[in-house]
């Protein structure tokens, strides 16, 4: 049997998640951000904003998050900033939700969507950067952006009646 830390939420979150949640990295704003990704929906209880600062060589020099959400949402936000910082945009876009989950030593299944949210936030931030700098948006990024926006609409519709 896997031994869990019984100190707090032992059965729910890994030690790495708890550690990250306790002292998250890179939270706050970047005032002159190159791109901002805003994903999630407050109705569902998760909103993640990711700010990136990109240099001339397309390296993400700085990244910060602002998140309204649960332990998993805050931890995935923090971990994605760690994973992305110093990488080129191209490299950063290769990060998957599984990378996020692995870096946290695992997430409860019910919280997997938080890892998706973190990756989506990055995609949206890059999309925003490309748009702002009037660059041609690669087809697969365009497609991902479209899917993220579409699912946002679905969620908003679902909760309209509430």
């Amino acid at each position, binding site marked *: 049997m896997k031994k869990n830390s019984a100190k*707090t*939420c032992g059965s729910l979150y890994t030690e790495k998640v*708890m550690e990250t*949640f*306790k002292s*998250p990295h890179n*939270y*706050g704003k970047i005032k002159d951000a190159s791109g901002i990704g*805003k994903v999630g929906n*407050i*109705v*569902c*209880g*998760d*909103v*993640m*904003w990711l700010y990136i600062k990109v240099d001339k060589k397309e390296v993400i020099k700085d990244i910060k*998050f*602002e*998140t*309204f*959400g*649960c*332990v*998993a*949402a*805050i931890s995935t936000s923090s971990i994605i900033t760690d994973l992305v910082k110093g990488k080129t945009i191209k490299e950063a876009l290769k990060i998957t939700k599984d990378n996020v989950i692995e870096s946290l030593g695992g997430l409860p299944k*019910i919280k997997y969507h938080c890892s998706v949210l973190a990756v989506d936030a990055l995609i949206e931030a890059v999309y925003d950067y490309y748009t702002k700098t009037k660059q041609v948006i690669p087809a697969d990024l365009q497609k991902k952006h479209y899917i993220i926006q579409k699912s946002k609409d679905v969620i908003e519709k679902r*909760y309209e009646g*509430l």
Partner: protein
Amino acid sequence: MKKIYLDYASTTPVDKRVIKAMEPFLTKNYGNTMSLHSFGQEAKLALENSRQVLADLINAKPNEIIFTGSATESNNQALKGVALRERSESKGGQYKNHIIISAIEHACIMESAKWLAKNGFEITKLPVDKYGMVNPEDVKKAITPKTILVSVMHTSNEIGTIEPIAEIGKICREKGVYFHTDAVQSFGKIAIDVKKYNIDLLTGSAHKMYGPKGIALLYVREGVKIEPILHGGGQENGLRSSTVNVPAIVGFAKAAELCKVEMKKEGARQIKLRDKAIKEILKIKGTRLNGHSENRLPNNINVSFPYIEGESLIIRLDLEGIACSTGSACSSYKLEPSYVLLAIGLKPEEAHGSLRISLGRFTTEKEINHLLKVLPKIVKQLELMSPFKKKYEKE
């Protein structure tokens, strides 16, 4: 770090005096109440003495108390038992199939009603006002010639609101409709008189009042027609077959006895602590109190913070050694915000930022002071991470 438990509405520790009362029935007098020998008869005697104590707490007769394994079971038994009896008596013909509940009942009432709806019964869910109160007039209007049962909880487990059960009971009795109340949160905390309030069925549970888990009761007024859910050896007047859990029942009775003696003094003490805490917490900018400021359980505090999420708040508090609860979706396994908070008119985003603090017998003023010191700091920390911070500051 000494831990501070402020989640008494979830469950309570067992009082040492209760454990002491239970012990002989685990080790010495362990007989089965159905046995004819002295072991069995001793157990039977303890069972009946306990039944008397619990009956006295709500002014019922001992034969009107049925012991069950949980409040969930009692509530299932009440709703399904009354409904299925009504249907079985019709022998395939027409039967009354309408049941009224409130929109803020505990999940075990909600889910039982849902199951009955799937099985030919009509369910009406009554709305509540912004404090979580059911309007007795709404009950009156909702009752039809087909109504068999109204179930409205005595006090809300989430927001602590005390429902007007005396008025609802009166209406139901006048209309010839059974009235059930889930009194789990108020049992032993607020005096209830089933005769005076015209209650036909009532649920109470031991583990919310310093008794053990796994034991609860259903008061069934003499003459109420109800079908058992569990069939077998015919214990509990044929209504609840199962070997009787004597040690737990003895503990339940001892817990009730202690609550009865201490009720007034303890209630007043908790109200003082509660109101002090509410007053201080509301000083945190943007905070709102959920439920009624006065018409609420002595031990319940429920507040919402804008722009921070409940699970994060709970875990941060836990890291500081303070245990509370939330109605946020992220804390549940459904990812839906609390329907109780939505029913009192909160927006889903407000429901996500809710915090329930529930006090108990062992809560000290020192503990509350510590909470009041720690909580604003944690709220601030989480606000700093929230994208809505700026919006919040502008307001």
